[in-house]
């Protein structure tokens, strides 16, 4: 089953605008990660935010985490056509014996129009 639910399912913006995607989840987590996927290819890790962090930045990416609301958001500033992709949040929780399980949402499909 998928724990994370991204919102919106699809987003279309003009190049240069900001894009915001939201993720809600159901259970306790160690951390939450965001991944990007281009055209049904492999997933690229973007950023990780731990459960004791509220905000994190990486280049044009800004991630927030609200554990009381069990939600996270990903903001991409000054979007580019190359940002066109599907974005997934994944919650991470320990699953015993030093292993961690990632549980993904259904993703947000972002289209950036040049």
């Amino acid at each position, binding site marked *: 089953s*998928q724990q994370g639910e991204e919102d919106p399912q699809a987003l279309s913006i003009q190049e240069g605008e900001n894009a915001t995607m939201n993720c809600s989840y159901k259970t306790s987590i160690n951390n939450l*990660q965001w991944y990007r996927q281009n055209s049904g*290819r*492999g*997933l690229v*890790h973007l950023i990780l935010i731990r459960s004791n962090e509220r905000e994190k930045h990486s280049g044009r990416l800004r991630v927030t985490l609200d554990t009381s609301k069990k939600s996270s958001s990903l903001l991409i500033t000054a979007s580019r056509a190359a940002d066109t992709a599907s974005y997934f949040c994944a919650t991470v929780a320990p699953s015993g014996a030093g292993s961690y399980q*990632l549980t993904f949402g259904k993703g947000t499909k972002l289209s950036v129009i040049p």
Partner: protein
Amino acid sequence: DAGVTQSPTHLIKTRGQQVTLRCSPKSGHDTVSWYQQALGQGPQFIFQYYEEEERQRGNFPDRFSGHQFPNYSSELNVNALLLGDSALYLCASSPTGTDTQYFGPGTRLTVL
């Protein structure tokens, strides 16, 4: 340093057949996880291998099995293929005890 590699890139099978997908982890990574991603969905966890043993399993039937070799590479086997097994199969590797996984490009399986 090569990342995670998977083979083949694409595969077409018919219902009832069996398939084997392969994954080579990133150098220094000893844990391999497999995911199934149906069209328009997020990846679903199949199982994870560490020290040549299945350490954890998602909600997938026994038709899905795997193996990990001493060099940490891994195989995913699916028996008695169903149309619903058509998906992108992703392999991810990580050093044990860490919580970030690195994904390969995937194998696109089509079952006719």
